[in-house]
């Protein structure tokens, strides 16, 4: 028996027809999410408040907290203070983690790395980021971000969900809820996680960081993994070809329609549609994840690691492909930035993992006209201390957690390139100018997506919850 050609269109259309039987003419031209919201308003979504500059977000999350002192926050005067104790006038009794609170001294560890000015803007960036530095006029460096959380788990949860404890929706889930999917054949919110190549301290991550909290679970981030099943349970079992699956789904839909006729429950037709979408995912996702047709020049740009599935560099290529296909929220996590000891060595491998690929992503987004509609963010959950954790050596030091100030960069839609925003004191310990809280960052990003952060809400426990809780100021000076 010959295998029959795949025919996607017929059952999909049939499902649409079935739905029309009870929704009459209201359905034409409305996407799946909107349809679902007609059927079941509580599972629906908001819509943007004004036209946003950005259609999507790529969040290059550097998990573990990269050292702002060695990458972004240039402090040339620290050299002269090598080994001196951090003045009490700077620390001002602020809390330290349990790892260094009881350390006898807190000796100042100037960065081992040189900083140079880059681009027309003259932005100071570390020699560890030569590729990113070429985009100095495209990125906006915020040196005055701050948070309250001092430990990884609450801090990453706060960064992603606006609250240090579990239970709230992540930014990506809010974006999915607010904007819905641009491409019906792919999830609106995709997460990819890479491990460090060097022997550094990698902090764990939790599903809650891309969870949907109290939003309907359909807004949860979908993990893309390297290997056979980029999305869980995507592949048919051994022995089931695509045409066999097509035939099986046709029979399944026929039976479900018989049920619908007698039961008249719209959930049944929605279910038929979800199976059709699953079938489409089975082809759209492997096509998306398949980098084999990318030309060699692309891999050259992202670096040799980009050919290895599951690396940050490979994920950056995938991020571009996801952006091209209209995925709303693309979140990469690269682990391994927790340099409590051997900070210089750890940073060298971490930057080797990420610098070239992050820069190549910016280049490609620009070339393909996507950077104007995509906002890219690079950074972690907090900063690191100016003083050394453990013994300070001329060529080695460790750095503990530091929530009082840290640096991230933004680029793309609506962002003012070449801007260095905010200032910290001589020790990169306290912010002296233009503090930006995580809530402010999130309010600003939501604004770029077309939302007033105070009005993107979801009712839970009698309260209208927001990503920014009761906080958040839009930092308009970051805008182009």
């Amino acid at each position, binding site marked *: *028996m010959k295998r029959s050609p795949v025919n996607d269109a017929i059952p999909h259309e049939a499902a649409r027809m079935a739905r029309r039987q009870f929704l009459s003419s209201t359905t034409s031209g409305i996407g799946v999410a909107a349809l679902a919201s007609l059927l079941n308003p509580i*599972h629906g979504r908001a819509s943007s408040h004004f036209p946003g500059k950005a259609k999507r977000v790529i969040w290059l999350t550097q998990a573990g907290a990269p050292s702002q002192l060695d990458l972004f926050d240039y402090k040339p005067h620290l050299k002269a203070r090598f080994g001196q104790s951090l003045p009490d006038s700077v620390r001002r009794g602020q809390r330290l*983690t*349990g*790892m260094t*609170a009881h350390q006898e001294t807190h000796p100042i560890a100037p960065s081992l790395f040189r900083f140079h000015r880059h681009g027309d803007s003259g932005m100071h960036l570390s020699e560890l980021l030569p590729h990113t530095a070429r985009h100095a006029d495209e990125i906006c460096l915020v040196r005055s971000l701050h948070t309250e959380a*001092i*430990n*990884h*788990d609450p801090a990453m949860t706060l960064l992603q969900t606006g609250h240090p*404890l*579990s*239970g709230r929706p992540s930014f990506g889930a809010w974006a999915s809820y607010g904007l819905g999917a641009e491409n019906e054949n792919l999830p609106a919110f995709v997460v990819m*996680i890479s*491990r460090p190549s060097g022997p550094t301290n*990698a*902090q*764990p*991550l939790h*599903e*809650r960081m891309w*969870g949907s909290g109290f939003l*309907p*679970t*359909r807004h949860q981030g979908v993990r893309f*993994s390297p290997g056979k099943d980029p*999305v*869980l*349970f995507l*592949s*048919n*079992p*051994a*022995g*089931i*070809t695509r045409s*066999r*699956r097509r035939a*099986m789904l046709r*029979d*399944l839909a*026929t*039976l479900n329609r*018989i*049920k619908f006729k007698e*039961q*008249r*429950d719209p959930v049944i037709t*929605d*279910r*038929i549609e*979800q199976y059709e979408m*699953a079938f489409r*995912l*089975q082809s759209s996702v492997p096509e998306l994840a398949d980098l084999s047709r990318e030309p060699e020049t692309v891999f050259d740009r992202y670096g040799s690691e980009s050919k290895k599935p599951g690396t940050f560099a490979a994920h950056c290529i995938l991020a571009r492909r996801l952006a091209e296909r209209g995925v709303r929220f693309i979140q990469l996590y690269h682990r391994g930035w927790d340099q409590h000891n051997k900070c210089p060595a750890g940073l060298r491998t971490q930057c080797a993992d990420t610098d070239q690929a992050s820069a190549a992503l910016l280049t490609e987004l620009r070339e393909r006209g996507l950077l104007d509609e995509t906002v890219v963010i690079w950074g972690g959950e907090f900063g690191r201390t100016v003083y050394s954790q453990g013994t300070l050596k001329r060529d080695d030091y460790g750095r503990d*957690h530091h929530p009082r100030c840290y640096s991230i960069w933004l680029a793309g839609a609506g962002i003012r390139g070449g801007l260095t925003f905010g200032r910290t004191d001589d020790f990169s310990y306290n912010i002296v100018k233009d503090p930006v809280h995580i809530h402010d960052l999130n309010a600003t990003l939501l604004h770029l997506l077309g939302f*007033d952060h105070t*009005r993107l809400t979801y009712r839970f*426990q*009698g309260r209208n919850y927001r990503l920014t809780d009761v906080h958040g100021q839009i930092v308009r000076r970051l805008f182009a």
Partner: protein
Amino acid sequence: MTTRERTSIETDRREPLSWPHSPGVLKILPLLLPWIIFDAIHASGNGSDLAFARDIQPILSEHCYPCHGPDSQQRKADLRLDLPENAFLARDHGRVITPEDPERSLLIQRIESNDPEERMPPPSSNRVLTRQQKQRLRKWIETGAPYDSHWAWDPPRRPALPLADRNPGWPRNAIDHFILKDLSTAGLQPSPEADRPTLIRRLSLDLTGLPPTLAEGTQYLGDASPLAYETLVRRLLESPHYGERMAVDWLDAARYADTNGYQVDRDRETYAWRDWVINAFNENKPFDQFTVEQLAGDLLPRPTLPQLIATGFNRNHMMNEEGGIIPEEFLAEYCADRVETTATIWLGQTFLCARCHDHKFDPFTQKDYYSFYAFFHHIEEQGRGNYGAPIRRNNPPMLQLPAPELEAKRDQLKLRLGERKRALSAAAEDSPERKQLETEVEALSTRIDEVDLEIPTALIMRERSEPRQTHVLVRGAYDQPGEPVTARTPLSLPPMEADWPRNRLGLAKWLIHPNHPLTARVTVNRLWQRLFGKGLVATPENFGTRGALPTHPQLLDWLAVEFVESGWNVKALVRLMVTSATYRQSSRVPAGARERDPGNRLYSRTPRYRLQAEAIRDQALAVSGLLLTTIGGPSVRPYHPPGLYEQVVAGKGAKTYREDQGAGLYRRTLYSYWKRSVPNPALLAFDAPFRETCVVKRSRTNTPMQALNLMNDPTFVEASRVLAAEMIEHGGSEFGNRLDYGFRRTLGRPPQNAELDVLKATIQRSLADFQAFPGDAQALVETGRTPLPTTIAPTELAAYSIAASILLNLDETITRE
């Protein structure tokens, strides 16, 4: 009901207190809620069809209370619109509300003002009153601005059964009278009773989480007794799987999991508590006792082992083991988690809001919050977990469970260790004998530790010998103690009796007081949600002023009173619900009902909804015959996609998921290992929560991820193949008979001809297909660890597997109708 030990709480069960009019309350009258004062004023009625709770309070709560409500810090202009005595006050510019005179009410002037400086709510608040809302407020003031207490603050009273003039023969019990009344008012008829196959499947899934077996179906269908249904209900309530079914919701609420949750997310051992819950439901432990033992089992006189295990309820919160944390910060989190969980489960209140400031919509102050917090603050616990300790070492306070064999082994080893130590002290310095003995002593000590760790443990509650001083935490910050407080319940709710201890036992007694306005209502509502798919109050987590109003307030109160008066008898309440005519209706949407009862708010049919995540997998295992029905014990590890842990874990947490090889693959899903940082993805796909915080309502979505799971997860591929073999071996020799058999096993009903035709075509097509590609057939049927039958050709088995997979994927299969 089985025999049960009653605790000392029994004595005060039926002594009604004069809540809320006891002298203790009068002293704090100025702080109390408006209804005590104003009930009398407005008892005369107002001649309007506006109801304060339904039509006015939601507007005030949503738009006004944030600045003119219970929160003293945010309050503007010293105005409280939640309290009439404040709202009616004569002020410099006039009265905010002048009853019966909207023109002389500042409230109306301000909400109708066109001046943005004047207008309320201010434009900056993003709150906008609709024209209808403004009209309502005006009309309300015209009719005297009658305030009424929020419905949920008053103790429920048993209402008289309403009598409907139509369908007098329909009601089977009290529930139906209330339902019928509203149906009749809307001009709707109840639906006819569902057919027997639907009823037995519905009941079995609702009460045990498992579908009926063929034999059970045959028995029920053939039972000519008029009490056949009642007999069936009785059998299911006595099934040991009833407790498993009921436990699932309680595990969500109690945030039960097998790991600590934070950071490296190492394992904990607490299945003894989970088994206690199953057992409590099975033996029909009255809900009051169920409450007392879990909240305060350790404080009962001479607590039994199960009563101590029960207190694990309050240890299910997440536990941080991260090296750098500040222990005090997380002690505060654990306490806050207990407050939030207790308030949600028993009170249906959102106390969390009051952690940092007075509650904005409901009458709970920040001081109330920390006084409640004080009940949970004196535990002999540590803020930072045992990161350095072996993986199986639970965080204290904990309890070793009886394990006679292991204990004997350990004691024997200890004896030997004693011997060797004595010999060692007698051995000559530097002798070879000494060296030997030293090695032996070390080995024995290690071995004793190992055996000790094998003894199962339970997390429990234990009070510190020295209580801590509890403070209000300013803005909720653990390191900003404010005013000192002692343990007490919120002042806006009826007070604790003077002779109750101010500890968790006193708190539990307060919660189960027969006149408590919330506990019974909230509990009854969750049970209704369990059986009808949604609560009578659609927000089971919030019975406050911003929660949903009950669709059937009188029914809710009737059930609450009935529940308390039955001795908090859970099985009796469940029986009452499932034997109602309301429950027994068909779930088909009757003609015209979609327009007149769109959300099925009136129950013009029985709700039809997708099964919970656990039931979907359990059902597939059950209908294929794979399910192992052992109850309880350590958690198991069924099939799981590879690589998920590796991407995210670190440190000493479980680095990889190791699937079980045998029995663990086929146990009921509530026994599946639950890792909080990476919960089982198949469960998440079907809306299971993370089990990190208290959840009393799951969402119910319909997504392509669910479809992928049911089609491709080896769990379901294997179940399809095993079901296919059953169809071939036991269904007869013809297509039709075999499919009929498969249909009945899966759905408890025979197929219609049209359905049969579809599946016949499936089989014919697939047989021809696989005969042409036998390698594919072989590959398909090899999925899963169950051995292949030797008597069935792989091509035939594969063809039937496709049909079986269709059966397991049907909307009807994963739906309770």
